[in-house]
């Protein structure tokens, strides 16, 4: 399935349109998306810091997801680096 991942915060510096499109199997979990994004980042993002992704969470529009959760049916996700609001 086609997954579109929105980028926020420090991840915005890596892609001009602040999103990444990845192809995953229908049974893929959030953990698989994490691995796929890490591979994408290693290839396409020259200054990528793996620690940033390691401390980042994935989310749908409704909630932060766990590693074992399935990918949202609409394929829409976001990667959330450590937050710093307020």
């Amino acid at each position, binding site marked *: 399935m086609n997954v579109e991942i929105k980028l*926020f915060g420090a991840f915005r510096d890596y892609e001009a349109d602040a999103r990444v499109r990845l192809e995953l199997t229908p049974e893929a979990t959030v953990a698989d998306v994490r691995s796929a994004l890490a591979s994408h980042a290693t290839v396409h993002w020259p200054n990528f810091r793996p620690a940033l992704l390691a401390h980042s*969470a994935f*989310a749908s*529009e409704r909630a932060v997801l766990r*590693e074992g959760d399935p990918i949202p049916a609409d394929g829409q996700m976001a990667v959330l680096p450590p*937050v*710093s*609001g*307020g």
Partner: protein
Amino acid sequence: MERHHCAVVDIAQARLDPAAALEFVSDPGFGGITMFVGRVRDLNHGRVVTGVSYDMFDVLALNGFTDIAARGEAQFGPQLKLYIAHAKGRLGIGDLAVVVAAGTPHRDEAFRACRMAIEAVKHESPVWKQEHYADGDSVWSEGCSLCVHADGEGGHG
């Protein structure tokens, strides 16, 4: 009318409004209102700051604010009005970044509900701050990791 007001305010369109927050959480049965206002400081970790940019995952943030309000009701009962608003975009020194207000019958609950809400906004909401410094540099702030571990605990980075 809803008992809680949750908003993301684009600084290009409007400003956060503490007076509106006070008004919203007021009620003839409420004797206590506590409000927290977060403003952009001119100095952070010893560096001169000229402004900050807030990035936000708006829809998830709003859902999160609503969850925080629900948690407030679970903790303090239905005699509670909460106002949670966060700015996004480029802010200057002194600009308001966040306004949280809680109205309750008595002051202890107002203080505790307001504190709970601002802590939750700070630690859980999908908001990212980039600081701009006098020397031209810009840095995304270190923050709290939202990673949900297998044991169900959220970690703070």
